[in-house]
């Protein structure tokens, strides 16, 4: 696996730089707080049922992972029965080679892409470029990142670190190099910017013969793949081309169609904070006379089996990429996605990336320390991944490994983030909100300590909160 951002310093150093960038902090603060509020509203709307759905989502994913070989073979059989072709890739290089070969066979030199974390992870666009194939990102945020030669900083909204004025500049300067230029009188009104992307991509959608996508879910018993999206670029890519290649991590499987009763409630509400995202496309192999008649599914391992082998860490594979943990995280809010140096930023990235990549680099071994362990990420996770538990587990692994950077150096990230009173306040508030879910017992070697002691309660209000309220009340 190769998708660490090249030249990116380890988290403590990158975090220090990021918190000093006031414009990025402003953009991030605004965006994460907006989406948090939306999520809370639509989650509360389901009342007590939310926790039942969450528990069921966790059960389904845990069960699937414990029998993953069985469900992979079943998915393969179902997709083939429906007229699709299944390919297996044990790493990024194999996946890229398979996809390049499939595109070359069509004779095309350009492909349209649906936003996909898996193809980011394997750095498909670079591999295709080296093979003389141009990959066009069609999700608005991915388009902004591609045009700006930037890096994604959020799972759902990769351009979350950019404000409207910056996006306008990118469109004006770069759109013409990729296709239809932006109108010279383009304003920074989000409606105008969205319209510019519509016009820019329209002709491309209508002429493209090959599309590459990921999938949010792959249903083993029916062979159905799903893509949840908002803009309609996904529908364009999944419907109009002749050939469709879908790159799907092996952990994306759910056993049965009826499992979607749960996930189609959990994902939209956790992710965009909507009752339902504007568009969901489902397809099962090939449908004669409707959509691509040549369909390929590439099943991707690329380190996932290493994560699966760790009985504590494997819960990270339950992740449905909603990004609720990023939006709630006091650390993410301050440093942004780039500081994590990986396509998977935020709390989930801090446990997923080092496990996928094996903590071989200084960037990776710093990631388990990119957290205050406040527990808010666990509380909002729709499949109940205990991110703090895995972080502590990974810190133990780093500490056990030879020649690791001292813990003091790694914790320097925390100092950079929380070196101000307002920052500390926010974290303590978040911890207070999360206190119902803080474990009573620490995992791993630290567990020896809590065997005979209860962890102290996280107070409902921090001293600072109490003090401020007391002041306000006067």
């Amino acid at each position, binding site marked *: 696996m190769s998708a660490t951002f090249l030249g990116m310093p380890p988290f403590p150093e990158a975090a220090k730089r990021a918190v000093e960038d006031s414009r990025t902090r402003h953009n991030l603060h605004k965006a994460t707080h907006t989406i948090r509020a939306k999520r809370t509203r639509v989650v509360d709307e389901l009342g007590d049922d939310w926790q039942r759905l969450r528990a069921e989502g966790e059960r389904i994913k845990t069960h699937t992972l414990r029998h993953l070989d069985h469900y992979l073979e079943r998915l393969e059989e179902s997709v083939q029965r429906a007229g699709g072709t299944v390919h*297996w890739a044990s790493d990024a290089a194999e996946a890229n080679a398979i996809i390049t070969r499939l595109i070359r066979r069509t004779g095309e030199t350009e492909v349209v892409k649906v936003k996909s974390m898996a193809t980011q992870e394997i750095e498909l666009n670079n591999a295709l470029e080296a093979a003389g194939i141009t990959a066009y990102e069609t999700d608005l945020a991915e388009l902004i990142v591609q045009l700006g030669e930037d890096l994604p900083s959020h799972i759902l909204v990769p351009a979350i670190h950019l404000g409207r004025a910056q996006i306008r500049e990118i469109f004006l300067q770069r759109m013409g190099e990729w296709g239809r230029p932006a109108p010279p009188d383009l304003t920074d009104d989000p409606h105008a910017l969205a319209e510019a992307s519509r016009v820019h991509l329209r002709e491309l959608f209508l002429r493209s013969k090959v599309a590459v996508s990921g999938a949010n879910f792959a249903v083993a018993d029916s062979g159905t793949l799903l893509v949840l999206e908002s803009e*309609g670029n996904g529908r364009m890519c999944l419907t109009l081309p002749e050939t469709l290649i879908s790159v799907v991590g092996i952990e994306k499987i759910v056993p049965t169609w009826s499992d979607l009763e749960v996930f189609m409630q959990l994902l939209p509400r956790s992710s965009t904070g909507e009752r339902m995202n504007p568009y969901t496309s489902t*397809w099962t192999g090939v449908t004669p006379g409707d959509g691509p008649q040549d369909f390929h599914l590439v099943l991707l391992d690329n380190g996932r089996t290493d994560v699966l*082998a760790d009985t504590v860490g494997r819960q990270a594979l339950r992740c449905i990429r909603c990004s609720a943990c990023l939006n709630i995280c006091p650390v993410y809010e301050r440093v942004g996605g780039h500081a994590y140096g990986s396509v998977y930023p935020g709390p989930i990235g801090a446990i997923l990336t080092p496990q996928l990549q094996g903590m071989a680099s200084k960037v990776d071994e710093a990631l388990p320390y990119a957290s205050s362990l406040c527990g808010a990420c666990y509380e909002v996770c729709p499949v109940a991944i205990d991110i703090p538990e895995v972080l502590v587990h990974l810190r133990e692994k780093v500490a056990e490994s030879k020649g690791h950077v001292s813990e003091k150096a790694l914790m320097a990230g925390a100092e950079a983030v929380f070196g101000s009173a307002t920052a500390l306040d926010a974290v303590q508030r978040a911890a207070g909100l999360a206190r119902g879910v803080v474990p009573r017992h620490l995992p791993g070697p630290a567990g020896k300590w809590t065997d005979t002691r209860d962890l102290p309660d996280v107070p409902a209000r921090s001293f600072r909160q109490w003090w401020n309220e007391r002041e306000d009340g006067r």
Partner: protein
Amino acid sequence: MTNGSRERVLARVRAALADVPADEPVERRPSERPYAESHDAGPTLDVLVERLVDYNALVRRVAPDRVADEVAAALERCGARRILVPAGLPEEWLSRTSVERVVDSPEDPRDVAELDSADGVVTACTVAVAETGTIVLDGGPDQGRRALSLVPDHHLCVVRADQVVDSVPQAVRRLDPLRPLTWVSGPSATVDIEMIRVAGVHGPRTLEVVLLDPDA
């Protein structure tokens, strides 16, 4: 290469799961469904209308015998001159309009340029979900190929009361996974710029629903 990879990945998965007892059941019992059937949001059709409107869809709730008049009026309002029609759309729905029709079917498909030059499309649906304000198309003869409800800028969808369910679980149970499905909740939208919701990107910028309610 791929064959070797298949065996390699499966072997790695099995090795990773060495801790899972061999006799742990692979199938889950279907009765294990502890979550709610629906969420008591109110009378089904009222909720559907409210939530469609909430996500910027236009909604007309009319008696079934008014369908032709409503379709004609809607097409006139948006100034459509040329519309796409799936081959199986009930003839009666278009009996009061004189706009030009371009009929499409999987057997006799229009090319993309023709789809793109149409002002709008009229389809039925297969299921609608009240709680989420969602309509689902399954490519049946009265809904057509997926491209039909995607390329034109205006989508007019006729929903019958008996197609509306309360919740997502009820909808999933009615749907056939082997058909290509499109779940639509409002017109296309994006939140990619500062998390501000902008309606109308690549899909139809207008979604209009004519809900046929026998009690209207």
